[in-house]
């Protein structure tokens, strides 16, 4: 994959001399980029159960095992031969995992399709940072009655980290939160600051936890702490997908929100002001 395989891409300035693309370079590609990002949510790729993969890798690394990756010298020159162990269970289970993901997506679609606005514009679904975003052509109906997250309860700040299965981070820019909550049996940790600022943290690696519905303007891609984040600049309906039975619970109208993902952990920062301020706060997460 070295860059000299194909010299054509190495000279960005060379594009200007290529008449075919002159027009395209005058504008941006936000529309096709958004469509591609949405398409990603509809692509199935193999995903054997992570615990099985981890166990298989560990088995190969156990000190008792010989460290020869591949007995076949021909294979060693390229990709060392895969260990033949453990293939079958992973393959059998793979399909099931995808069916689970599919079921969750269907829940979101069903909700969207149940409203006239949704039906007119079941346009596109983005899966980003553990959040499903339905993009419609029109502004979705606001949620009138706010509902808390399932099982949401206030906990002491010091005990927050001990009640969830992932590391908790705090944005240095905002200082210590006013209070914190844990929801849905330790799956979501939330922190609150004066002025309606809220930061939710959760492990969204397997399937989405939140869903959002937005009309134009659509989410804007921005860089947060070196990773891709998305800025939702308008108020929008926010909901939650429960783990136990995949029920989709409408929650409230969310204020402008920044979402991003670091490793398997997902963050949504709501009500922290404009885009620049939100990014500044997000960058200060420690």
């Amino acid at each position, binding site marked *: 994959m070295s860059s000299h395989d194909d010299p054509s891409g190495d000279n960005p300035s060379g594009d200007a001399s290529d008449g075919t693309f002159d027009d395209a*370079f005058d504008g941006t590609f936000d529309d096709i980029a958004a469509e591609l990002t949405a398409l990603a949510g509809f*692509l*199935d790729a193999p995903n054997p159960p992570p615990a099985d993969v981890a166990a298989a*890798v560990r088995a190969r690394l156990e000190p008792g095992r010989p460290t020869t990756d591949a007995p076949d010298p021909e294979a060693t020159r*390229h990709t060392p031969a895969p260990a033949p162990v453990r293939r079958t269970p992973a393959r059998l289970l793979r399909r099931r995992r995808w069916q689970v993901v599919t079921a969750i997506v269907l829940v979101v679609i069903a909700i969207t399709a149940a409203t006239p606005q949704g*039906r007119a514009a*079941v346009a596109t679904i983005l899966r980003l940072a553990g959040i499903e975003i339905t993009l419609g052509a029109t502004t979705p109906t606001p949620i009138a009655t706010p509902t808390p997250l399932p099982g949401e309860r206030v906990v002491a700040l010091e005990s927050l980290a001990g009640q969830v*299965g992932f*590391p908790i981070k705090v944005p240095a820019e905002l200082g210590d939160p006013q209070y914190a909550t844990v929801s849905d049996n330790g799956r979501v940790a939330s922190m609150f600051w004066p002025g309606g600022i809220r930061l939710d943290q959760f492990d969204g690696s397997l399937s989405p936890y939140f869903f959002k519905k937005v009309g134009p303007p659509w989410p804007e891609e921005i860089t947060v702490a070196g990773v891709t984040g998305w800025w939702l600049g308008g108020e929008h309906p926010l909901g939650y997908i429960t783990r136990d039975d995949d029920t989709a619970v409408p929650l409230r109208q969310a204020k402008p929100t920044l979402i991003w993902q670091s490793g398997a952990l997902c963050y949504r920062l709501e009500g922290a002001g404009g885009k620049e301020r939100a990014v500044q706060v997000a960058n200060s997460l420690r």
Partner: protein
Amino acid sequence: MKSDSSMDDDEAIGRSLAGDLAAYEALVARYSALAHRTAAMLGAGDEAEDVVQEAFVKAFRHLATFRRGSPFRPWLLRIVANETHNLTRSRGRRSDLAVRLSATADLRAPDDPEGAAVAQDRRARLLEAVRNLPERERQAVVCRYFLQLSEAETAQVLDWPLGTVKSSTHRGLARLREEVGSELA
């Protein structure tokens, strides 16, 4: 297991370096889905599972070369991309985009089958257009939009200069728009 899942990457890497295989197991589980998706999308096809397992084994053995404090994700995905590249080269085949359009979409909006069919058709055409992109443009587009990597991460994963990522992405997007037109704007 709770202590495993509550470790952040840096702590898991530190413990792995000290020989704690349970810590590394947690790290593998955390990145397994993304690694499989990357391998499949960069051309590993049916062999994505083997490529990923191999990549994780190699990553462990080379963990000492990982620069602590830098993000683990692009470092790992670069190994996955390399393994995938080795595989496709050794098999002498094109690195096809090995994904399929989810059947989910066929079932969406049951009271609007026509709209659903149009949307699904649109997705199929776009996916086909991505498949047919020249290899470099396809890889750039896949990393940026299907794997949702930043430009800098894409450059690291594919081992390209940043300028190449930018120009290949732009060329790819321009070609896609020519192929399928602009519908959502």
